[in-house]
């Protein structure tokens, strides 16, 4: 399984919010074990998807504002509540709203995952910004961002 849990970023408003989605498929490897005969997309992967979307977005906001590239590192997951099950065939829409963003220190977002317009997970994530260890990692991160945001609408 490739550990990319955001298929597409659809809308980005710098410093404010981002939206994207993940299509859950029966062919995802995770369903071999979670659970045999009763495929349920794990809540932990929903958190990871929301974190990937939020982290990429905060990195993008920083560099767009002229700060040198740094990696958003998840430091706190809090008040997460799962409100509905996610199964193969569902499209999970992720949204992250910025609570605060200090480009030299940290950023916090309120996140939610929706299925057919209904919230199935929500919570709050905190990120700090770390110096990127090597150029290879930065390259991969940039490539992922470029691909994920290929059709994204930027709202100013």
């Amino acid at each position, binding site marked *: 399984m490739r550990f990319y849990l955001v298929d597409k970023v659809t809308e980005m408003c710098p410093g404010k919010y981002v939206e994207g989605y993940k299509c859950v498929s029966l062919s995802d490897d995770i369903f071999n074990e979670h659970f045999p005969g009763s495929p349920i997309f794990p809540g932990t992967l929903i958190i990871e998807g929301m974190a990937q979307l939020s982290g990429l977005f905060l990195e993008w906001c920083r560099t767009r504002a002229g700060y040198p590239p740094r990696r958003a590192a998840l*430091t*706190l997951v809090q008040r997460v509540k799962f409100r509905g099950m996610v199964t193969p065939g569902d499209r999970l829409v992720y949204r992250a709203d910025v609570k*605060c963003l*200090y480009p030299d*220190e*940290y950023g916090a977002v309120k996140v939610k995952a929706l299925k057919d317009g209904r919230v199935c997970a929500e919570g709050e994530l*905190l990120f*700090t910004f770390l110096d990127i260890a090597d150029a290879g990692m930065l390259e991969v991160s940039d490539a992922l961002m470029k691909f994920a945001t290929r059709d994204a609408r930027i709202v100013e």
Partner: protein
Amino acid sequence: MQDIEAKLKENLVPILGLESVDDIHSDSALVRDLGAESIDYIEILYMIETEFGVKIKISEITMNDYGVEGIPEDGRLTAELAAQLNRDFDSDQFKEGQTTADIFQIFTVHNLAAVISKKMS
């Protein structure tokens, strides 16, 4: 100030992975006594922002601000700067000759409460 310190202690318990608020004393040093790591500081600052409604920059409690403004090239506190730190952080623990690393190690819960109190007023 006492209310601020009590609320701060309660909120530090889960962040620092402690058993109870009784593990935290006013003169407990965040790093040396309570084992705070740099990543904990991000969470502590975010907690202060959400619980107390004031924003503290990491440089304000890691002494970078003072480092830029006042600490001489040898990196050790002068008597004047030590007196200033003691005033700012309601303390008497800062002394001439200490380094920024020393100060970071001995920065206490009470010192942090003093910064919050100052910001709130």
